Every structure is written in structure tokens, then in C-alpha cells.
């Protein structure tokens, strides 16, 4: 029996946020603190010839690459990105020099003159000579199957950059302490920042990373904080004083990561009845100037590229290409929104060419328990594509509406999608995340590095521990992530914080309960004192993954969804407004229904922005519209009625049956909206669907 799990208990962070009492990075102040500023490249490609400080440098701390005590590399996957340019500039807004001063006006007034030798940049990923990563997923014989297919449908689909626009910009404070550095920051992954600081500062000094309350991440504070943390630490080490760096909005938009733009080509073979027999998919992601996370974004994108459909012959070939633009990185969905967009718009076009109803096409081909995915993973009983589709169709009266709305100014469209939870393949095994639970005098304290970034980590973890331990939710405390005291529960990414970390915490709580021998925490504590339980992630023993051939069990489980979008077009003015989105999503079981609902609503709103509004204009390798006036994201008035349905299909490997949820809602809205616009007669294959794109479609 559960008393906390499944209930929308009072959130741990509510009162602080509603009263303004909660402290974020920029709200903290340390004695003697300096402010830091980053001097960045103003060319997309070339070499630095000279650097001159054209200001009175007294009172300034100035850092360039020669001040780096250890390695000038942001430790991530390929380790190709420097903290500070030595000579080679690969993109606009690349960090070259760091300044710190106690007076911000003086700091902003400092003029650093940099001379460059410019080289020819590459901006078009299709013409780039260099790929960071190639991935091939192959099952069956695609060419053979295409040759013998009764019908072949081809198509190319494009998605643009997307900027995170967390309302709190990137910000950190590096504080000298005990001969080392304490780094306070707005970030998702304290141990990523810790590893990165070790790389730049070396192993000789004590280090710790403390996550401050974080005003939104959405993936944008997964890897980038490692960069700004290193910068602040370098300035703090050189000056011996605390250094705060808070990006302004323009800097954050120009210099930090975005969602990878994509070009996805499909060549699909079918029988006349509509059965998929061959899927040939080519995925190109624009990686930007350094590899950062592109390889793994590509990996997730490719694995999801065939959509939630069964097909015996699949070939997916993906490349993440180098361009002279700021590196693209993690953004909610991590490659899947791009490839699932292409797949779902393609399915609609397939149905048109077959002259059949796209629902029937999807129903016929949707993955069912026992079916094999593109990576030959055999799905277990918790695969819910059909259930999501059927519930969405029933709830929206889709078939009738689709007929009724024909020829009107309203269109209705649908997308079926899925999202693997946790790290890909053997990733979770390699991570070997740990969680710790401490007994306290009143209950228990959760000691993990998983961060609260608005999605409800603290509340949801406390609910799981509360029920597993059998103590009231209110008696569970959650420690602020500080790498010097919490267990490394891995990064707060990949929809893993509930399913993976929550599960380890559940096991900690169950063992703690055994140790208590029927006593309450207070009784036990009074008698024997405190103790801690530490547990490590256990990879399900059935999981097999071949990383060389991209075959096997890509994820322990998948969450499933079907979105139905109704849009209205003003044919006189080409204004397209979403009217209603119905989102039917299955993610095991909601631990906290209100929080889960918020994740689905929020992801849906971001997806609507991705589809209809959010247009990053790149000029000479830099975002040319880096303000909230020129890069528009949805306001509350752009948010239509949202009808959210949470289907349950428990996953045995998750805490209380839960799977991962955070990213799933991002996958569906864009294709659902574009398919609704297609229903209005506009052959749209690219997003964002801004007026000029729609006008171009209409005049075809």
C-alpha cells in the first residue's frame, strides 16, 4: 500500500518559490566577491593573431589559456573542446579571455582588442567534411526489401535549432576554500561539473560542486555549466577571491548550446495494404564546432528514427556533422524529437500516397509487446503504443472530426511516439549510479546528486522513500546536491531521475526498513544513532547491448505517447494557432500526478513552440536574433487547452512501476501540429512553421 506515491503531495519547493525566499545562484553573495566576464571570438573560424588589453587593467584579474593549471579541455566524451582558445577559433562567441573585477560597470567597460586571421567557415552540415560520429543500425536487408516493395515513399524533413530559454540564465560562483574551490551553480549535473573542474584544475586541490536552486534546465544545463564553472574557477584561483559569472540573456543565447538542427530522409517500402517492409532512414545532425554530446544525441535520435513501428528490414544511418557554429547539445528529447518528427510526418504522407487512413496505417504497424524494435529489442508487456493511439482516437473522436473538419479552417493531426528511459544500451551499467539514504533523528535524508530543476526531483524521491520506508512523507528530507557529501547518482538527464535513481533509493529505503526492525526512525535513532545505506544501480540481467553494431536492448523500457493537435488557420492571414492538444501518455505510473501532469503540459508547450514559433536565425555562424523579443517562445496565450491523459502500464524495473517521463512529452507536439496543418492542405515538412514557410507551402 502506498500513502505518498500516487498522491499529489505538497511539493518540497513550493513555499520557497511562491514567496521568493528560494535562493538561486545570482541571489548568493560571498565576501570579497568579483564578477567575471567572458571575452569571446567575433569570427566563426580562424586563428587569434594578437590580444591587447585596451583599458586600465588595475584591479582586474585577467585569465587566458596560459593560466590553466592542468588541462585546457572540457572533460566530456571526446575531450576536443578547450576552456579557452589557444590559437584556433572554431566558432563565434568562443571564449578567449576571462576578466574579473569587483565593479561590474568597469568590467563591462573593459575593451579587449583581438586580431584574427580568418579562415573559410563551414555552416552547411551537408557540405561539412567532418563527421563527429557515424552510426549505422541495420536489421534485415533494406535494399532487397525496397526493391521488392509494392510501394516506396520518400521524403525529407528538416527541423531547426531550438534555444532552451530557461528563465534563469547560466550562472555560477567559484569560491576559494581550503586551498581549493567550492563551485555553486545553476546546473543539472554536479558531478559533470566536478569532473570538468578536475580536468582544468588538476587533482591537487579539494573541490566540490554545489547545485543551487536551478531556474530551468531542459538539457541546457547538462554539459554547458562545465564550461562556465571552469571559467569561474580559473578566475577564482588566479584572484584568490570568489568570482560570480552570470550570463546575460544575449550571451546565453549566442554562446551556449541549442537543440541540434536535423535533416532526415526517409525511403520506405510498403505493401499495398500498408504494412511496412523496409525503412531506410538517413539522419544528419548539425553538431556545431565541438563534439560535446553530439555522438549520444545522434545515438538516441537514430534509435528512435524508425518510430514506434515494426518493420523487419531497417537501415538507419546517422551522422553528426561539424560546422563552425557554437556546439549544439542536450535539449529535452535529445535527438528523438527531430527523428520522430520526420517519422510521423512521413507516416502521414505514406497514408496519403496509399490512399488510406493514417490511423489504420499506424495501428497496423505499431509496435506491440513481443515485437522487435529497429535495434532488435524484443518489447515486453509494458509497450503501449496501441493503447495510447486508441485512447487518443477515442477521446478526441478523431475519425469523425477528421472527416467533419475537411474543408474548414480547422485541422486535426496526430502523432504516435515513444521514448527510451535512462541512458542508452550499457550506459546505465557504465554509470553505476549510487544513492545514499541517511537515517535522521526524525526520519531519513536523501543524499543524491540528482537535481531539482523544477521537475520535482526532491518531492518525487521523497515520496518513493516515504512509502518504501513506511514513514510519513514530511519526515523525508532531501539534501542540496553537494559533491562532497552526496552519492554520485549520475546526471539529471535522460528521463532517468525517477526510474533509475528512484529505484536505487527505493532499494535503500527497503534495506533501511529491515535494519529498523519495526522501530520508527526516531526510536531507532535514539537507541542506536544514525546510519547510512548506499546502493548502486543494478542493470536488469536480461539486458544485452552491442555497442559496435547498435543492436540489442537499447533501453530498459520505453514510455509511449499519442498527441492529437487541433489547429486553426486564418486563411486570410496565415495565422496558425493551436486550439487544443490531447496528450495520451503512458510512463509506467505517475509518482506524483500533478507533477507528472506539469511535465506533460510543459513539454507539450515547448513542443508547440518548436513547431510554430521558435526560429533561431543563424548569420555568419552566430544566432542573429538572440533576444526574447526576436526569438519568441510561447506565452500563456499561445497555450491552448491541454487535455492530458496518463495511462498506466507498470514497469517492474522502476520504483512503484514508474518509468521515465521528462522527455517524452517533447516528442509528439511538433509532428501532431504539422500533421494538423497538413490536414488543412499545406504540404509542410519543415519546422518551425512560421508565416513565410506556410505562405511558401500554400503557393506550391
Amino acid at each position, binding site marked *: 500500500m502506498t500513502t505518498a506515491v500516487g498522491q499529489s503531495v505538497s511539493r518540497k519547493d513550493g513555499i520557497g518559490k511562491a514567496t521568493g525566499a528560494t535562493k538561486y545562484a545570482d541571489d548568493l553573495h560571498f565576501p570579497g566577491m568579483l564578477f567575471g566576464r567572458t571575452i569571446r571570438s567575433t569570427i566563426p573560424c580562424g586563428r587569434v593573431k594578437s590580444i591587447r588589453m585596451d583599458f586600465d587593467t588595475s584591479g582586474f584579474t585577467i585569465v587566458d589559456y596560459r593560466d590553466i593549471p592542468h588541462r585546457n579541455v572540457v572533460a566530456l566524451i571526446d575531450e576536443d573542446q578547450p576552456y579557452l582558445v589557444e590559437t584556433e577559433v572554431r566558432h563565434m562567441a568562443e571564449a578567449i579571455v576571462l576578466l574579473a573585477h569587483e565593479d561590474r560597470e568597469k568590467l563591462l567597460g573593459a575593451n579587449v582588442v583581438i586580431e584574427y586571421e580568418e579562415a573559410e567557415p563551414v555552416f552547411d552540415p551537408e557540405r561539412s567534411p567532418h563527421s563527429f560520429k557515424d552510426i549505422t543500425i541495420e536489421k534485415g536487408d533494406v535494399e532487397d526489401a525496397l526493391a521488392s516493395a509494392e510501394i516506396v515513399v520518400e521524403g525529407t524533413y528538416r527541423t531547426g535549432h531550438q534555444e532552451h530559454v530557461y528563465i534563469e540564465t547560466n550562472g555560477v560562483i567559484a569560491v576559494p576554500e581550503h586551498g581549493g574551490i567550492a563551485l555553486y551553480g545553476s546546473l543539472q549535473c554536479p558531478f559533470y561539473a566536478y569532473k570538468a573542474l578536475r580536468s582544468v584544475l588538476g587533482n591537487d586541490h579539494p573541490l566540490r560542486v554545489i547545485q543551487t536552486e536551478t531556474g530551468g534546465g531542459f538539457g541546457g544545463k547538462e554539459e554547458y555549466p562545465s564550461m562556465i564553472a571552469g571559467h569561474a574557477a580559473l578566475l577564482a584561483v588566479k584572484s584568490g577571491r570568489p568570482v560570480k559569472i552570470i550570463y546575460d540573456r544575449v550571451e546565453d543565447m549566442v554562446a551556449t548550446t541549442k537543440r541540434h538542427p536535423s535533416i532526415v530522409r526517409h525511403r520506405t517500402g510498403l505493401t499495398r495494404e500498408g504494412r511496412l517492409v523496409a525503412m531506410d532512414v538517413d539522419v544528419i545532425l548539425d553538431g556545431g564546432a565541438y563534439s560535446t554530446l553530439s555522438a549520444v544525441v545522434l545515438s538516441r535520435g537514430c534509435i528512435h528514427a524508425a518510430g514506434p513501428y515494426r518493420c523487419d528490414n531497417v537501415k538507419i544511418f546517422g551522422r553528426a556533422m561539424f560546422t563552425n557554429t557554437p556546439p549544439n547539445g542536450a535539449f529535452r528529447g535529445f535527438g528523438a524529437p527531430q527523428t520522430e518528427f520526420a517519422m510521423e510526418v512521413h507516416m502521414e504522407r505514406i497514408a496519403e500516397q496509399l490512399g488510406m487512413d493514417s490511423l489504420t496505417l499506424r495501428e497496423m504497424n505499431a509496435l506491440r509487446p513481443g515485437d522487435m524494435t529497429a535495434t532488435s529489442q524484443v518489447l515486453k508487456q509494458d509497450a503501449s503504443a496501441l493503447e495510447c493511439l486508441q485512447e487518443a482516437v477515442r477521446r478526441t473522436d478523431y475519425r469523425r472530426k477528421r472527416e467533419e473538419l475537411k474543408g474548414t479552417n480547422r485541422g486535426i493531426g496526430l502523432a504516435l511516439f515513444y521514448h527510451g528511459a535512462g541512458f542508452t544500451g550499457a550506459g546505465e551499467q557504465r554509470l553505476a549510479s549510487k544513492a545514499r539514504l541517511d537515517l535522521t533523528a526524525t526520519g531519513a535524508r536523501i543524499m543524491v546528486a540528482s537535481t531539482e530543476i523544477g521537475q520535482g526531483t526532491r518531492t518525487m524521491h521523497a515520496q518513493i522513500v516515504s512509502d518504501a520506508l513506511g514513514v510519513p512523507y514530511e519526515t523525508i528530507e532531501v539534501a542540496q546536491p553537494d559533491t562532497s557529501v552526496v552519492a554520485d547518482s549520475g546526471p539529471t538527464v535522460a528521463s532517468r531521475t525517477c526510474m533509475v535513481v528512484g529505484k536505487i533509493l527505493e532499494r535503500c529505503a527497503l534495506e533501511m526498513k529491515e535494519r529498523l526492525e519495526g522501530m520508527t526512525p526516531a526510536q531507532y535513532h535514539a537507541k542506536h544513532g544514525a546510519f547510512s545505506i548506499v546502493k548502486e544501480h543494478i542493470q536488469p540481467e536480461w539486458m544485452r547491448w552491442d555497442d559496435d553494431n547498435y543492436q540489442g536492448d537499447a533501453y530498459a523500457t520505453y514510455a509511449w505517447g499519442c498527441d492529437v493537435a487541433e489547429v486553426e488557420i486564418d486563411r486570410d492571414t496565415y495565422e496558425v494557432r493551436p486550439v487544443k492538444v490531447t496528450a495520451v501518455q503512458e510512463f509506467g505510473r505517475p509518482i506524483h500526478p500533478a507533477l507528472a501532469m506539469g511535465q506533460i503540459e510543459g513539454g507539450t508547450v515547448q513542443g508547440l513552440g518548436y513547431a510554430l514559433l521558435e526560429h533561431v536565425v543563424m548569420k555568419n555562424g552566430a544566432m542573429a536574433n538572440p533576444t526574447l*523579443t526576436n526569438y*519568441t517562445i510561447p506565452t500563456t496565450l499561445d497555450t491552448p487547452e491541454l487535455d492530458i491523459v496518463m495511462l498506466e502500464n507498470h514497469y517492474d524495473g522502476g520504483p512503484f512501476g514508474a518509468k521515465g517521463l521528462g522527455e517524452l512529452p517533447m516528442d509528439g507536439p511538433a509532428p501532431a501540429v504539422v500533421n494538423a496543418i497538413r490536414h488543412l492542405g499545406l504540404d509542410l515538412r519543415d519546422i518551425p512553421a*512560421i*508565416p*513565410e514557410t506556410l505562405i*511558401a507551402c500554400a503557393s506550391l
Partner: protein
Amino acid sequence: MERFQYTRARTIPEAIGIGAQATTAQQGAPVRFLAGGTTLVDLMKLNVEHPTRLVDINHLALNAIEHMPDGGLRIGALVRNAALAHDATVMKDYRVLSEALLSGASAQLRNVATTGGNLLQRTRCMYFRNTAMACNKREPGSGCSAIAGDNRSLAILGTSPQCIATNPSDMNVALAALDATVQVQGSKGERTIPFRDFHLLPGDTPHRETVLEPGDLVTHVTLAAPRAGATSRYLKLRDRASYEFALASAAVIVEVSGGRFGNVSIAMGGIGTKPWRMTAAEQALAGAPVDEATIVRAAKLALADAKPQSENGFKVELAQRCLAHALRLATGMAAS
């Protein structure tokens, strides 16, 4: 932001006296009147404006909306956009103005932005706002980065080889259609400027945006008595539903009798370097039958001189559609 001396003006002559010490009242003016601050403080933070003296005029007695003997309305320069939009007379008799004001910015901004400030609202051109880029408006002779840059939101009417920046105001579009007049007090006394003469085309001097001279203080905007039987509407097209500048907007005031257009006033926003009065379209409509063909013809005519930039060609069609639809709304051919 650069340092400045701050003065809170107690009287209009005091403000004018300080203003008159400046060499220019245009871009880069060393003395600036500070009202709502939504444009000026913003541009000072960007170092686009760097006055050495700020004269806070918020405490001058210029915040009344007065009914004039001729049936018109005299609006004090410090009347806030929210107050003006919600004024009962404006809502009833000058609907186009109320709609235009409410379509602009956000509730917070409308609470502080003033009538005079909105009149002088500066362009949102990204290159004007970024001191690292060339901009003839900000720095005469430096060039125009926008022509080869991201010019999606910029002008297609009234441009010059030196500048393609759009006037971003919604209020100005309504005032242009309403044939408002601007009352100014300066060191040489008071004068009244017809709205269409108030803003300047960029030409070779894009840094000169209005006819204001040092010391000139906009005190009032005056509206003539409402035209009996006229219907007015403001239609604004943009990417998102609210809190965004126009891609194209239209203010229309139409009189209809016996199935034919009478007097028609049209101004458009989001597409011109100044609030753009559509005289040719107005003439084409006057006396013509109220039907789809007339409206579409007028809308095409309105944009006949449009010169699209590299990335805003779509605005020609969008603006035509915007005007046509505004006319449909005003004539009841379409429901809003």
C-alpha cells in the same frame, strides 16, 4: 551604462530649458527626457543611447485626457498607454487606438509607457540595438548591417540604402490613421505638428527620426472629433499571440453607406520606416463598392511600392492580407 546627471523637472519650462542646452534631440542626444523609460532605459543599458543629462518629466502635469470643445480629445504626453487604452471615450469613439495600444507590449509595459514615449518609440532593429554592428541610425556613416543581415522583421516601405529599420509602435499606426496632431513646446514657444509630418523617412539621415529640435517637449497628442458613422479597427499579425511586435498591422477607419465606401483612412505598421499612411488605397476605396474585389485591389495597391529585403519578401503578401482582412473586419464582411 554611462554616467549621467539626473534631474526631476518640476515645470515644463524647466525641462525645456535643460533640453535646449543639447545640440540635438535626435539619436545620441546628450539630454533626454525620461518618462516611462521602456525605450530609453533599455537603450541606455545597451549603450545605444548615452545621455549625460536625464530630465525626469514624470511629475509634470501632462497626464490628463481632456475633451475639447470641438468634440476632439487632447491626450497629455504622460498619459500611460494602459490608461489611454481603457479610457471610456477612447474605447467608444477611437476604438482603433484602444485596440492598437492593447495589442502592444505587455500589461506591465503599458502601465508605464507613455503617449509621448510611444510616439518616440525606437526601432527594434537588432543591428541598431547592438553596438558591435554597423548602423547608420546609431552611428551615421557606419553602414547598415541589416540589409545583408537578419532583416525578417524590418521594413519594406520607406527604406533607403542607408536604413531599413521599422517603426515598431502600434499606437503610432492608429494615430496616423486618425490624423492626430502632435503638440510641442520648445524654447521658441508652442507649435502643432500634423502626425504625418512628425516622423521622418530615413533617407540619408536615418539618425533623424522626427522633426523635434533640442528643447522640444511633446506635451499632447490631439485627436479630431470622431467621424460620425465610421467604424475603426486595428489588426496586428505576428508570430505569437501576444507580447510581440507586428510583422504587419493595419489601422483602418471606414465609412460605408449604400454598399459603398465613403471616406477611408488606412495606416499600416510593422512594414514601414515610419507609420505608413496608405493614401493610394484610401483613394481606391472611396466610392467603390464594398466587396471582396475592391478590398483585394486596394490591398494590392497599398503595397505596390514595397521593396522587400532579402528575408522579408513574405511581408508583402502578409501585409496585403493584413489590410484586406482589417477592411473585412471593419465593414462586417468578416467576424473577428
